[in-house]
């Protein structure tokens, strides 16, 4: 034991023993292992995906026919507010975070992220923050001012009750989780790459994670500021947005969308990363124009900062501002188009295998294109004057975020499932899931284009029967239930595949990147020996070095094999021990936020937990000295 010579370090006395080991419930609660954290991110956000989906179905039921009285308007407003908020902040963002966690260290040949405990903190703040926001259903009404929370309708004057306070505090808490995770992945990607892996040899998914993380770190603080202002307005009577006291409601719109538009790319870039990994694998040829894909992703991330007012064409900013934002918005179509053509060129000349993951990825390109094209139509501000706040816009962003992000995420689930759980999901059920989802999705959202052009505004809980909107709405509702069926089938698939395990090898798809060079599921230390990287798709060329010459000729039997873990001496591998302090901080932060609405006692308890957690964390050694690590 080498610690004997060091001066004794102060350590906060423990109330609970430090969790140890790799098995059992406490190994999950206290884990700092990026894979376990990723899986928990996935499970929790999938749960919210179901909740957000149920909210959507209830909305669809109420809109299925004219003058329906199934759901009252107040509940309806809560449902669409929470559907949007849930799907953006509790589903697509954390599901992307699940993939960041699971994949980034494996793709760059690292044993974990740069700050494993910070990673655990992000997870627990996210979990308790999402619970905090949804407690509102049981305390007198969920948020009802829309996921965009426009004042004055969201101010205390017009929206008494705690719903919107839960919303804004919830967003602030969740923002902390996102910013921490963003920083963590930036540092991880910059510093922890395996030797030889220069930035331009990184897998595309890692690149998109990198760009997304930068966007998160820059965009979420803007929402944080807006959120604190709104909290102050609602709880402490300030007048940032209170129009009755001269506050400016448009001020909120600017800061919200200055966050909100980069947020759109935060949601879609990870999906683009996922697809960019799946397509080359099943086309068995390299991604076409790797650097163009990377730079167009960076271009989208950068240009995303100059377009926020296209959400505000009808606010009355005047023709000059509308012209500027029209043009900047339209030009985002260029890097997006580059990606689509590069993906198509990846398929071109390939040898395409239609696995479920591949189907979802091709579906992604097809559906995302539709969303992109409808986006150009309302980037044109005069055209948008008709489409703004109608179902046309609802159709547009569901083609981008469902046909885009969710399709890619499902593709990613089928693709990497065998890697992380060691068995395949059923391909047969998977393909049925894809077909059902494709049909349901288009049946639900295609008619919304015409609904919008026929003048149906968003966020209305009912409509008159002489408007000619009934057939399309009925179709959309039907489509919604078909989507629900496909998601149910996916869950059946998970249970079925768990029971009838079809064991997956380490490299089941003849993969290209480093995560496929280790066994499935990966050992907790990932790589017994940190790999050395020489090329993009390094694992692929380790297997088929002759391909470096160009066309496939000669001997194409794999020259490299998945890392054999049986001879690894785990005692030689140093990984941080578990910690429960992130959980304490996560609980504390949400309790304090809850207390802002109810009682300072709760704020005090929350802050004590946070401070206790922080001190405990900072004085806790990375490894328990009395454990046998050395």
């Amino acid at each position, binding site marked *: 034991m080498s610690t004997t010579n060091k001066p004794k370090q102060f350590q906060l006395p423990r109330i609970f023993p430090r969790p140890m080991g790799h098995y059992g419930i406490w190994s999950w609660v206290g884990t700092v292992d990026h894979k376990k954290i990723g899986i928990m991110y996935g499970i929790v956000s999938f749960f919210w995906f179901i909740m957000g989906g149920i909210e959507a179905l209830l909305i669809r039921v109420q809109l299925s026919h004219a003058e329906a009285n199934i759901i*009252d*308007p107040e509940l309806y407003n809560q449902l669409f507010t929470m559907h949007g908020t849930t799907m953006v902040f509790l589903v697509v963002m954390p599901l992307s975070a699940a993939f960041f966690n699971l994949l980034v260290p494996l793709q760059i040949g690292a044993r974990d992220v740069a700050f494993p405990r910070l990673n655990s903190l992000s997870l627990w703040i996210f979990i308790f923050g999402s619970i905090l926001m949804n407690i509102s259903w049981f305390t007198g009404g969920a948020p009802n001012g*829309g996921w965009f929370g426009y004042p*004055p309708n969201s101010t205390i004057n*017009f929206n008494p009750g705690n719903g919107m306070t839960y919303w804004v505090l919830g967003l602030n808490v969740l923002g902390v989780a996102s910013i921490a995770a963003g920083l963590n992945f930036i540092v991880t990607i910059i510093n922890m790459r395996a030797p030889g892996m220069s930035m331009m040899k990184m897998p595309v998914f890692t690149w998109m994670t990198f760009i997304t993380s930068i966007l998160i770190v820059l965009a979420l603080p803007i929402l944080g500021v807006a959120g604190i202002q709104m909290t102050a307005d609602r709880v402490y009577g300030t007048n940032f947005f209170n*129009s009755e006291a001269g506050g*400016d*409601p448009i001020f909120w719109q600017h800061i919200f969308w200055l966050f909100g538009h980069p947020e759109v790319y935060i949601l879609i870039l990870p999906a683009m990363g996922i697809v960019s990994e799946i397509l080359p694998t099943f*086309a068995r040829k390299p991604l*076409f124009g790797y650097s*163009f894909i990377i730079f167009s992703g960076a271009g989208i991330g950068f240009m995303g900062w100059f377009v926020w007012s296209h959400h505000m064409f*009808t*606010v009355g900013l005047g*023709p000059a501002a*509308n012209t500027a934002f*029209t*043009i900047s918005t*339209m*030009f985002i*179509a260029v890097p997006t*188009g*580059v990606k*689509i053509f*590069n993906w198509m060129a990846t398929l071109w*000349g*390939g040898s*395409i*295998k*239609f696995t479920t993951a591949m189907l979802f990825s*091709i579906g992604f390109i*097809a559906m995302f*294109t*539709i969303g992109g094209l*409808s986006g*150009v*139509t309302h980037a*044109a501000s*005069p*055209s948008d*004057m*008709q*489409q*703004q*706040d109608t179902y046309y816009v609802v159709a547009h962003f569901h083609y981008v975020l469902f046909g885009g992000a969710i399709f890619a995420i499902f593709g990613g689930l089928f693709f990497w499932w065998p890697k992380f759980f060691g068995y395949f999901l059923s391909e047969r059920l998977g393909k049925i899931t894809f077909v059902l989802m494709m*049909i349901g999705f*288009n*049946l639900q959202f295609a*008619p919304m284009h015409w609904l919008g*052009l*026929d*003048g149906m*505004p*968003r*966020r209305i*809980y*009912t409509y008159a029967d002489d408007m*000619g909107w009934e057939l399309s709405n009925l*179709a959309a509702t039907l489509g919604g239930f078909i989507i629900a069926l496909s998601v149910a089938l996916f869950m059946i698939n998970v249970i079925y595949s768990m029971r009838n395990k079809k064991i997956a090898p380490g490299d089941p798809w003849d993969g290209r990147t480093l995560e496929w060079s280790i066994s499935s599921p990966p050992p907790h230390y990932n790589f017994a020996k940190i790999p050395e990287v020489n090329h993009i798709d390094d694992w692929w060329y380790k297997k088929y070095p002759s391909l470096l010459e160009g*066309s*496939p000729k000669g001997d194409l039997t794999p020259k490299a094999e998945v890392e054999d873990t049986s001879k690894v001496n785990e005692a030689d591998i140093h990984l941080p021990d578990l910690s429960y302090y992130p959980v304490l901080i996560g609980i504390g932060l949400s309790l304090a936020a809850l207390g802002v609405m109810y009682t300072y006692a709760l704020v005090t308890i929350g802050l004590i937990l946070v401070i206790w957690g922080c001190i405990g964390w900072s004085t806790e050694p990375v490894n328990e000295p009395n454990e046998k690590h050395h």
Partner: protein
Amino acid sequence: MIKKRMKSVIKAGIIFALLLFAMACSPESPQSTWDTHGPVAEIQKNLFLFVFWIAVVVFIIVEGGIIYLTFRYRRKDDKLPVQNHGNLKLEIAWTIIPAIIIVIIAIPTVIAIWDTQVMPDEEDSLVVEAVGHQWWFEFKYPTEEVVTANELHLPEDTDVIVKIASQDVLHSFWIPKIAGKIDMVPNHNNELYIKADDPGLYYGQCAEFCGIVHAMMRFRVIVHTEEDYQDWLQEMRTPPGKLTIGSDEDEGRKLFVGNCSMCHSYDSYKKGAYTKEIDSQFNRWEEWKKDKENSAIVSAPNLTNFGNRITIGAGIKENNYDNLVKWIENPDAIKLGTRMKNHAAIYKNENKLTNEQINQIAKYLLSLKPSMESSATYNK
């Protein structure tokens, strides 16, 4: 075998697409943006169609390309395909070509922005003020000194500047067949240029989420020939006919004046009533702001010439006796959340109106139609 399967897949796809298109865009919808009746909506539609057809070409290239590539390059054997990392020329081409297409789209777009979003001279135009309230529209004609609610009357072929404001939260002013929308923002006055080509009845609706019954904040636009429009203005300055003493209508009038007129003005045909109505509407609002729970007063639609209105409840129900009785009896049954139900004394237990009284008020309201006879006496 595979080809057969492919064919059936394509067939099913086409049938599915046709089914979807069967539902597509009906210009019959009263809010259809296809059936335009004004230059602004026309420009907006034409711009949309211009972008749309370019998008259709791109759509066919991309989606057709995807279908072609996936069938053409499906895996047939275990051979590795040619390993191709990219092609700089091609990639530069598909960066520049979209950029050129965007420029082609941007030029008419910018022209359309300046064509539709710059206001004409106020002196040559009709100026109308539209104010959004939770959940109804107030319309004022400052030069003509006329005020009304939920039904906007316009002359055809006239440049109109709508000055747009909101009293409470965000709303949006939108008449799909005549022009795109502009938001109604408190503390921030907007202007919208519109022009209606043809006389007729048009639908309008609030398009910005504004609280519990956002869905039921609608309005109607009646476009007249110039002559009819002048007649309408004249009617708005004309008092209703005299009521027979002791008739239901007259009893209704007494009840209305006693119970409803604090919030609903009904006699803005009088000279000087316009400024008075603006003041009272302001005062009602200020009063309500002081105590939003218990205020006995809140700003409310002007009911002058109510008998000529087409709808009640801000474009929700046809204006007829049965609907009006139902509305007065319990507005919540038609439109949940109306302020009237929350604030008017007649909905508190001790002050409840009898059914007969409600019938009388309804009859009185329907009798509020300009009468040329009384106009003659009134103007003397």
